[in-house]
């Protein structure tokens, strides 16, 4: 049985003629948690955007195999239906659209794609209740407009709540720790850990090691100047924490 979820080979991409990713190779298997770390501007968020299908980035070469499909060939919504979930670094506000209406639309669109029946109101509400408990999302937030007027922490919790609802195969957490205080960080991480199974995988993108105290990665990759320059276990994150990124830069310069 194939344990592979995603296999990225030689991925290069550019925006407005400027090359950001300069050849990424990354393979993620079922049940694994990978962390990508790197200094600002190294291309971390670009990688997550490219995997989610944001069209302002142009892929110039390389391939991304996702569960046997060419991921780059799929539209953003098809990727979502196939189980790719991106927790946004800056979750978008959609005024006037309630959180639950948003999610129900999302679930039903996916079910339609998978030729499943739309989720019943009863089941949906039960699911909302169960999953929101996971991240302790305030009941009133569920009926508020998507992310509108949410605090930074509430937005991030809402992302994880949505992740729980959509039950993705590959979750990409883009700087989910930014703007979180220590309590919120614990709650969010706890949610992510509970959603982990032997069938799915998580890609955590972060600048700081802090998050990795809570979401313990199997692999840590260091992204620098559009390339993965080092891969290791969770101890690599600690090393980075201790020495900073300059150490990598210096080593590369040699």
């Amino acid at each position: 049985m194939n344990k592979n979820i995603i296999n990225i080979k030689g991925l290069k991409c550019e925006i407005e003629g400027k090359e950001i990713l300069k050849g990424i190779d990354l393979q993620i298997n079922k049940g694994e948690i990978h962390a990508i770390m790197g200094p600002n501007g190294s291309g971390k968020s670009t990688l997550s955007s490219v995997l989610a299908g944001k069209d302002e980035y142009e892929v110039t070469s390389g391939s991304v195999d996702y569960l046997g499909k060419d991921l780059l060939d799929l539209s953003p919504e098809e990727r979502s239906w196939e189980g790719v979930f991106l927790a946004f670094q800056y979750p978008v506000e959609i005024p006037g659209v309630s959180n639950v209406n948003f999610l129900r639309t999302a679930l039903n669109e996916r079910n339609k794609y998978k030729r499943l029946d739309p989720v019943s109101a009863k089941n949906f509400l039960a699911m909302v209740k169960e999953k929101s408990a996971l991240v302790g999302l305030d009941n009133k937030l569920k009926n508020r407009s998507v992310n509108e007027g949410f605090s930074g922490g509430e937005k991030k919790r809402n992302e994880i709540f949505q992740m729980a609802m959509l039950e993705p195969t590959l979750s990409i957490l883009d700087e989910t720790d930014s703007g979180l205080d220590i309590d919120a960080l614990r709650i969010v991480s706890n949610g992510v850990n509970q959603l982990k199974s032997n069938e799915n995988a998580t890609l955590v993108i972060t600048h700081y090691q802090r998050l990795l105290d809570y979401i313990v990665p199997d692999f840590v990759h260091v992204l620098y100047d559009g390339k993965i320059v080092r891969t290791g276990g969770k101890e690599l994150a600690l090393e980075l924490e201790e020495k900073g990124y300059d150490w990598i830069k210096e080593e590369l310069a040699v």
Partner: protein
Amino acid sequence: MAYTEGDLKKDLENKEYEFGFVTDIESDKAPNGLNESIVRFISEKKNEPDWLLDYRLKAFKIWSNMIEPEWAHVKYEKPKFQDISYYSAPKQKKELANLDEVDPELRKTMDKLGISMEEQKRLSGVAVDFVMDSVSVATSFKEKLGELGIIFCSFSEAVQNHPELVKKYMGSVVPATDNFYAALNAAVFSDGSFCYIPKGVSCPMELSTYFRINDSGTGQFERTLVVADKGSYVSYLEGCTAPQRDENQLHAAVVELIALDDAEIKYSTVQNWYPGDKQGKGGVFNFVTKRGLCHERSKISWTQVETGSAVTWKYPSCILKGDNAVGEFYSVAVTNNHQQADTGTKMIHIGKNTKSTIISKGISAGFSQNSYRGLVRIGKGADKARNFSQCDSLLMTDRCGAHTFPYIECENSTAQIEHEATTSKIGEDQIFYCLQRGISEEKAISLIVNGYAKEVLNQLPMEFAVEAQKLLEISLEGSVG
């Protein structure tokens, strides 16, 4: 709309006799053109009293000396007023019995709206007056309302049965001299709805009028008069559709609302006249004068969802005459393809402590032009008057236009006026966020647009709100490529 062709057919079969339609169908349409004898013909046809004929003739004189206004931000070929028939009763049975003749585009729309017979039946609690080609053909729930002293009938009936009320209030808010189209309407109006709520009565159900232009070569000139006596309440709904025609059809209605002391009128419109085809051919010219007069502590609230018509020219307004009166205007106007809309409101503050709120949400797509035009006037005596206006525009394509023309006139130093307006493109980051959650682009746009318009949609009665949401969706279908 809260009514279908099927219902209409049924109602007509049942009520045909009651309304005394003559069988000679041809004679129920006036010859094209407008002159004094046409005005007399209409008045005679409706068996009107002399005072009303005089009123019409005066209005006709006034109209003859007026020129069509050009200040609105719309361009269109002016209607040829002599090529229009100013009176047309529906050729009921023959045409309506045959649903296949109803244009398929409209039927599709109705199907999409989910207006099935079954659903209609469930929509009890809504009394409906049906005005087709200027003639009121069906009013339901009359008896039940009668028990409370509520009068809800066609305008012609009111002229016959309640002339004192009609005479007293007709033209008191929108005089025939008001503007070109109001004058035209005053001269040739053929029917419409009349509603009177007695003192202290809260109308237990939504009153609804459904307007439809069916016949070709006709204009629709209906008049609506709603009088809410002291301390009464009424919620009034108005819906409109017209079949697909290559020619432009003229709709020049007048709506007058009178809210006496402590009364409240809620007037909601879902306007879905035929907007013309994708190339901008055909469609209804919707030139409507709507105005309400608020006495002390009364409230008039206009809500409109405008998705139809080739050209819209419409400013539902409130004259806040009495102290502590409240005026509200909530509007969503969608234009697509080659539609043009110039719509907004006037809030005229005369009494002390008067308050007004304006929420306008414009959505432009295709090659359309969508303008908000509004006036807030605070008179000298309007101490502590307040107004808040929020006018937002959403642009869907790079070939449409969104414009804002607010007029703010203040003559009182204790008044407070706030006006805000924004214009922006539909958020690409919002669309991507939806896509990432597995919501297709079309659905995403509909979600975002409905969210954007929510403040206004929330003002509509429940059944209407759902329908209006679907209408928005249909109107914008394929608007983003």
